[in-house]
């Protein structure tokens, strides 16, 4: 090793040590700060996939806007999906601060290099799904996002604070949809229960594998990208949901669900990890559709983006002329 390389490694080691000290000190890392390349990559992956999830999540919900069964619900659902688009924008912006462009982000989504929350590979089949998605899927997302409000990367943390505010509103609306159905007639109650039967386990899967099986967890925790473990967050979600379910007469589809006095938490059944990995691998109802839909809209909109660019260029030229 040459003296220069040695110096560079020494510098690198110093920078990394300083970086970790800041992390341990609960300091926020900002875009201009030095960061390990692996930290940058990890964040790009996580933030962009979070953004893609918001955007892809617009599809199963957008699927019910035209069929919303009252003008009030129609307006609320429209506002919700709009919020999600907004969340996607915050998160794309946060990712872009790390040196990746919107075009690269979208391309990664289209090729499959970047993922989105696998929950959205499930189809929305009834109006009650709007309730289940709001209550359970947004509910799970909130548990995760509340934790992420303390993530080490500044733009991401601040984005989470803004998103959490709106997301809790979404969760309440979802819960309210189900509550209204459970107070309805037999067919409505059946519809609500059926939606919960389909979304409960996939919602638990949203927290990811057990930490022992999770690929990125270790390093993410060290760098305080991730603040709590998958299993911790999952338990929190289960605990809050059981009582909410009972309050409106819904049965969670888990015969092993029971209060454990010792632990102070609810015990629950083992997740079907085969299903989890199977859906991620492509066997979900909507895997192909979600990406194809996004790609189609993107392709169909190419001429619009080109026109916008051309127009902006003309105006810029006119201003400098």
């Amino acid at each position, binding site marked *: 090793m040459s003296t220069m390389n040695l110096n560079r490694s020494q510098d690198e080691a110093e920078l990394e040590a300083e970086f970790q000290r800041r992390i341990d000190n609960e300091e926020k890392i900002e875009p201009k700060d030095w960061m390990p390349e692996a930290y940058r990559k990890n964040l790009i992956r996580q933030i962009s996939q979070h953004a893609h999830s918001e955007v892809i999540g617009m599809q199963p919900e*957008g699927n019910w806007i035209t*069929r919303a069964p009252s003008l009030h619900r*129609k307006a609320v659902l*429209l506002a919700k999906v709009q919020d999600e*688009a907004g969340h996607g924008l915050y998160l794309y912006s946060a990712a872009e601060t790390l040196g990746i462009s919107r075009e690269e982000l979208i391309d990664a989504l289209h090729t499959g290099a970047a993922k989105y929350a696998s929950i959205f590979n499930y189809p929305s089949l009834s109006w009650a799904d709007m309730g289940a998605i709001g209550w359970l899927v947004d509910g799970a997302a909130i548990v995760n996002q509340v934790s992420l409000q303390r993530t080490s990367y500044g733009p991401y943390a601040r984005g989470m604070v803004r998103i959490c505010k709106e997301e809790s509103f979404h969760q309440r609306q979802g819960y309210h949809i189900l509550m209204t159905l459970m107070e*309805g007639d037999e067919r409505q109650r059946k519809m609500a229960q059926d939606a919960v039967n389909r979304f409960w386990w996939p919602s638990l899967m949203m927290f990811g594998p057990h930490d022992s099986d999770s690929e990125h967890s270790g390093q993410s925790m060290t760098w305080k990208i991730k603040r709590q473990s998958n299993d911790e967050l999952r338990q929190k979600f289960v605990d809050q949901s059981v009582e909410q379910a009972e309050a409106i007469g819904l049965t969670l589809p888990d015969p092993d669900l029971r209060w454990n006095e010792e632990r102070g938490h609810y015990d629950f059944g083992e997740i079907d990890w085969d299903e989890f990995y199977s859906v991620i691998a492509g066997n979900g109802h909507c895997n192909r559709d979600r990406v194809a839909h996004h790609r189609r809209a993107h392709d*169909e*909109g190419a001429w*619009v983006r080109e026109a916008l660019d*051309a127009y902006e260029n003309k105006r810029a030229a006119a201003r400098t002329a």
Partner: protein
Amino acid sequence: MSNVANEKIAAYANRLGDDSLIHGHRLSEWCSNGPFLEEDLAMTNVALDYIGRARNFLTYAAELIGGGATEDTLAYERDCLEYTNLLIYELPKGDFAFTTARQYLLDEFELLFLTALCNSEDSTLAAVAEKSLKETRYHLRRSKEWMLRLGNGTEESKEKLQTAVEQLIGYTPELFEVDALEKDLISGGIAVDRAGLEESWRSACEKTFDEAGVNMPQAVWRVKGGRTGFHTEHLGHLLADMQFVQRAYPGCQW
């Protein structure tokens, strides 16, 4: 106010509500289909404004109709022959040029219409108009900007915009039709004299079209019938989707 007068104002509010509802519904179809995320958000925002506007008009109409009518019974329990929206609103969303052109033409109209409706003798209609006018000013800024972007963007975007305008223009004369109901309410100071808006509308639009390098044709053909339930074949399918849950599960709360 007399019952007959109530009936007429109810019918008027009902048609304005139908216009807004169908327009908002069509715009909402852009959700997750926009050319980029910011525009997706923007269009669903406009859609939301229209749904809100529809709720205001239909709720008022329902109040006047009485007998248990609500914004939802009006929206979800009438078939297409009973819907009274103008035809231009029910046309499929088309491509982005079509939506842009339609939105712009309607925004210019609504600016004039709502401004006038703010002076209605009916205080509820005037209040809805005032709130809606704020939104429409914002919509118009956006749609005018998009007219310029597409008209002065690329050859392709200009062509698509011109095509869209040719497809739409024959549906615009209906905006300015005054039937017996509206004639009556105009003399009562309640409704807007639509016919009187046409010249200003045309003039404002032509300015923008000119700036966008797109021709605003005269309507060689014209189609109308919405106020009497004589719709296009598009509305029936729209309502089949929109009303399905209420139809399949009647008499429920949602």
